[in-house]
């Protein structure tokens, strides 16, 4: 079970998650400091270490819309958050899969700050309200990347396959 530490509205863009003026910072070890930098409340909670790993951020629809900046994913991953969103913009979704962000898409999901939630198989349960929401499955190609442990590992695997292919062992 995990606690909802913060909730945000629909159409939260990557400019809100990771403002453009910090884009010269690229390393995943350095990006977490600027998560939601212009949201004094949430950034304050993160900086004050009031958000233990595994805490839940609940987002609305079209989460992560806007730019392709990968910092918007690495900054959240650095805080080891579980993100539950009602829907997610395509590029953000892809980056989340590629980097292994803990992200669950559950259309219609409802939770308030302080609620306890739990991911159980193919649904996410708001334990506080007792309501259950089905999780949207990842397309199978993306699942293969998750299973490999992210896109870097998956690319290494594919590279090894490419290298062995011309040997014509089949």
């Amino acid at each position, binding site marked *: 079970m995990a606690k909802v530490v913060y909730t945000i509205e629909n159409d939260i*863009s990557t400019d809100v998650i990771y403002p*453009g003026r910090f884009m*010269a910072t690229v*390393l995943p070890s350095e990006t977490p400091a600027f998560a939601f930098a*212009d949201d004094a409340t949430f950034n304050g909670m993160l900086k004050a270490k009031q958000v233990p790993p595994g805490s839940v951020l609940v987002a609305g629809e079209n989460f992560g819309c806007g730019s*392709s900046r*990968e910092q918007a994913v690495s900054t959240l991953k650095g805080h080891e958050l579980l993100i539950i969103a009602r829907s997610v913009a395509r590029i953000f979704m892809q980056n989340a899969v590629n980097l292994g962000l803990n992200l669950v898409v559950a259309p219609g999901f409802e939770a308030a700050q302080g609620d306890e939630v739990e991911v159980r198989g193919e649904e996410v349960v708001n334990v506080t309200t007792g309501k259950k929401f089905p999780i949207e499955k990842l397309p199978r*190609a993306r699942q293969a*990347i998750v299973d490999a442990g992210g896109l870097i590992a998956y690319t290494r695997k594919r590279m090894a396959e490419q290298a062995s292919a011309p040997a014509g062992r089949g």
Partner: protein
Amino acid sequence: MGMTVVEKILARASGQTSVKAGDVLEPRVDLAMSHENAALVINQFLEIYKETGKDARVWDPSRVAIVFDHRVPAESAKTATNQKKVREFVARHMISKFHDIRGDRGGICHQVLPESGYVLPGAVVVGTDSHTTSHGALGAFAFGIGATEMASVWTLGFAVNVEVPATIKVEVTGEFAPMVGPKDLILHLIGTISAQGANFRAIEFHGETIRRMPTSGRLVICNMSVEAGATAGIVPADDETLRYLREEAGVANPPAPVQPDPDATYVQVVKIDVSTLTPQIACPHTVDNVKPIAEVVGTKVHQIVIGSCTNGRLDDIAAAAGILRGKKVSENTRMLVFPASSRVYQRALDAGYITDLVKAGAVVMNPGCGPCLGVHEGALGDGETALSTTNRNFKGRMGNPTGAVYLCSPAVAAASAVEGVITDPRKGA
């Protein structure tokens, strides 16, 4: 079964005769573009090769393009050091399509790529920038990806997990009224289908209005397709595309355009008649918060911006110069103009537009992304309002979370500069 343009392009790039929406493919990549964020791509690329015992090698250096545009010239030591790192990588890996900070061949990636003839009809283009959708204007399938995905493309030469998007067909008819154009059309479309109306989908543009539209206008509508969430926006290539490639991009023998089949399957059809369209404004803080200009006329504006990968082209600057010639930018506002590329800048100089704008009181900056994403120059002060021809008005976008950004066409921006408030350019027409 018939295929859409995107399905045809992806089928060919994946070596298949027929594909449909929802199929998962691994298309070979014709062009892989990055800007300053190549610094992160390099990081991830080297990470892929770590522990493999192999030398890191880009699959095909001639298909990689790197264009510095987001922070040019560098605003900080950190950016300058990132750019230096990218420059060293470019030299080591012999990447030829490199556009450094230069006054002769620099600019914004989404202008530099088409005008350099790098983008061809039927191509698969990926870019570590969401506005890579721009290149659909030339009949290519072009979409934005993250830095790690680009590192994977640099390694493998194909994109590993591309799901064929369902396509929305947008049919546009009618003639634009004076002072109304492609920017108003795309803002109207985004306002109609919403900021997520095309999420995970492609938009294919058709109709007489699109056929008559020059490539510069098609770049505007494909560029902002991503603001409706679209994976790609695409105008099936035609005679105008071939004209642009030959006359403006130096491509002697462009490939034959790819057309959709007459019985292609579309998930949705949207019809728009532009003959009654008025100037459209996207109000803070979402791009789909679109209103006809009449509803916001008179709003005080502290900063006017003309430029970006959306509206920094020659016809945009010409439109602004035409309105500002012999007039003055209001003392109550400031106006910043940044041409989309060095070539656009030079042509605007030759045509006298730059003189018109500077005499009117505008500040003309070097080509680049400028204030659009709030990382470099032209930040807003606390509580200030901008009126901009750029593509995003998200909270904090122009460098200040207490600022507000309205999006509009170049004609609206120029007319408003004279008054210092949002002004209908048709006024007095």
